[in-house]
């Protein structure tokens, strides 16, 4: 009896049964200080694969499964989720957390499963020579930092000399990513950079904004996530910092970040690498096959929001890579290493995006053996508090590759040396 009970309990500690079909685990977070943001992303991610399953019967005749696993943005739970799902034939991971990404990079390289980190994770993973299994197209943090500075250059007639720019960042691997680039750019363009770390989760940032009030920087750039974003925008409004001089990274540019601040958030800008809203043809099908039959993830209450769109965009890229991998492998039941080849040969042209029903939704993505990061193009969006929506204010802008490429080479070489990797290609 005791033995039976013990075996039953043991069985319950082990994850669910093995699955057929193509498995794309969704390591999401819907709880904790980052849950409001993580939920929307996870919904977009799920819904696009549901759309493919319902409308096309999957990809190349293979249904896609997206088993979810809650990480709460916590690295230990992330490891547990990775271990629990990788045995089920997981094809690719997209954990939406820079901290978890850093842990998974060595693990996926050993287990030979691709890791796709659009717009987050380790920037130098763009160097495919060193990071064989990691892809971070269409843009990374250093691209974001460079595009933001480029935009400010444009605003100031190409000259930022003597200007003061403050970086407000989440004091974690994620927030620290852009510092090196911004320092290089400040040398190049002659602006002064001040760094203001905010300890996660970031509900407490009075002192940092007091410092901003005292120093009066011309611009504030923010690397925030979760509850930190709304707090920062609220604090900026409190000290009457001009919103149009406040630029957030793409993770600080969703509706949940600006809505709580109300009208005071009007004019706040953020970077983005994907479109927002439901004015894309793909939503006709989405409505018909996913939302109206009631198959939308968690009821579909966030359809079209900035983060929903980004989650969907990640799913689009993964779906395209699966399709490419199926072409290359000549069979529809692909394995994780075959998907890696698919990612590396990926080429999403503007025409292809239009075909999917998302014209001008994201930049062109073309990857190769040595470039796992695409073009790095991003654009700016601005919040209109009256209409309660984001509007795109620039075209896709290319980052300053002259500054970024040496930095990427330097950082990835340091990693290769530390981890004992011989560069490929």
């Amino acid at each position, binding site marked *: 009896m005791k033995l039976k009970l013990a075996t039953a309990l043991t069985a319950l500690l082990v994850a669910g049964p093995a699955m057929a079909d193509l498995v794309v685990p969704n390591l999401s977070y819907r709880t904790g200080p980052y849950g409001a943001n993580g939920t929307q992303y996870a919904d977009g991610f799920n819904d696009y694969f549901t759309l493919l399953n319902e409308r096309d019967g999957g990809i190349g005749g293979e249904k896609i499964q997206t088993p*979810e696993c809650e990480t709460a943005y916590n690295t230990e739970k992330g490891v547990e989720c990775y271990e629990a799902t990788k045995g089920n034939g997981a094809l690719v991971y997209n954990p939406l957390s820079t901290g978890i990404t850093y842990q998974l990079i060595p693990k996926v390289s050993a287990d030979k499963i691709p890791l796709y980190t659009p717009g987050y994770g380790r920037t130098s993973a763009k160097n495919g020579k060193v990071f064989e299994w990691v892809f971070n197209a269409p843009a990374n943090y250093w691209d974001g930092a460079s595009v933001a500075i480029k935009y400010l250059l444009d605003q100031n007639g190409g000259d930022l000399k003597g200007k003061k720019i403050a970086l407000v960042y989440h004091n974690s691997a994620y927030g620290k990513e852009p510092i090196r680039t911004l320092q290089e750019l400040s040398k190049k363009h002659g602006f002064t950079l001040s760094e203001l770390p905010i300890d996660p989760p970031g509900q407490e940032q009075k002192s940092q904004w007091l410092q901003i009030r005292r120093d009066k920087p011309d611009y504030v750039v923010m690397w925030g996530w979760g509850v930190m974003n709304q707090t920062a925008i609220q604090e900026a409004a409190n000290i009457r910092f001009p919103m149009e001089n406040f630029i957030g990274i793409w993770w600080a540019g969703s509706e949940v970040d600006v809505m709580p601040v109300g009208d005071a958030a009007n004019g706040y800008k953020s970077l983005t690498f994907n479109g927002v809203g439901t004015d894309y043809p793909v939503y006709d099908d989405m409505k018909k096959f996913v939302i109206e039959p009631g198959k939308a993830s968690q009821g579909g209450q966030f359809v079209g929001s900035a983060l929903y769109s980004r989650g969907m965009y990640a799913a689009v890229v993964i779906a395209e890579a699966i399709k490419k991998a199926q072409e290359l492998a000549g069979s529809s039941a692909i394995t994780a290493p075959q998907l890696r080849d698919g990612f590396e040969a990926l080429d999403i042209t503007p025409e292809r995006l239009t075909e999917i029903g998302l014209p001008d939704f994201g930049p062109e993505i073309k990857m190769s053996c040595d470039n796992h990061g695409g073009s790095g193009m991003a654009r700016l969006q601005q919040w209109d508090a009256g209409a309660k929506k984001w509007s795109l204010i620039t075209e896709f802008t290319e980052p300053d590759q002259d500054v970024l490429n040496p930095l990427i080479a330097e950082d990835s070489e340091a990693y290769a040396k530390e981890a004992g990797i011989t560069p490929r290609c």
Partner: protein
Amino acid sequence: MIYREAGDFKTSYRDDGQTFPIRLDRWGYYALLAVAFLVVPFFIDSYWANAVLVPFLIYAIAAIGLNILVGYAGQVSLGTGGFMAVGAYAVYKLMTAFPGVPIFVHILLAGLITALVGMLFGLPSLRIKGFYLAVATLAAQFFLVWLFNKVPWFYNYSASGQITAPERTFFGWAVTGPATSASAKYLTCLVFAVVLAWVARNLTRGTVGRKWMAIRDMDIAAEIIGVNPLSAKLSAFAVSSFFIGIAGALLFAVYLGAAEASEAFGINKSFLVLFMVIIGGLGSIFGSFAGAAFLVLLPVFLKNVLVARLGWPTDLAAHLELMIVGALIIFFLIVEPHGLARLWRLTKEKLRLWPFPH
């Protein structure tokens, strides 16, 4: 009937003073060790190692360490996360600076470094007690995490402030890094857990432990009978931090493989380990294991029941998990304020009389 002292004759003082005076306990202990060392490593897969057993063993080591300080010496500490961070960053600096030295040596050295840091932050305990000491150790927690975030030397000037464990071997077996097999991870942690638990058990029933307990029960009385509070308190901080440092080193190097100070070693970690000690039982080695098991295994167990078996949405399951674990903590503390270890002791006492209680 079967579980009893009768018939188990002790003919020497040594036998009389052993940890498991009852034969069945002793056999159970040896059987458990035999299974843990000789059977489990051959069957363990990476899920069982990484999600269940390795974290359990590491947190058990940390809980034993904190139990020495809180349960045996009576000094409340909220600095566990900070001290674990010291262990993690020490092992990182050592393994990157001296790649040729076996990793076990580095882990032990990391423990020793943490012991020194722990003694330093234990100095206020000579003047202040109770809640005030807890606040002083809380300062250690925040200071240490801030330090590892602030000074780039600690994370070898990496762009993001993350530390990543490179591959290091022990007699040709990879112990850290991505290529480590599940059984190597498990065995490394098991060896440390068993040896450290053995050390803790023998320290706490010897002179040192009796001094700690004397200080805990009444420090003035202890001083009068000749216990030196300086050496007793600082030795408690040193030994406790040594254990916690090793746990931190293992957590980073063997279990996670990459870490950042504020996320992996924040105040939450201090509370988690303190809760393990309180729920498991203050002043009990078994309690440390039981508390670690309760707080590490139960969430994983609940998650698998609710999500994988019942198919509930993951956010609902995550919230329910918090509620169930919280409710169980309250339940156990009401039913038995002295923790799971006391429940275990009561069960054993009842078993001795079974089936003929008087």
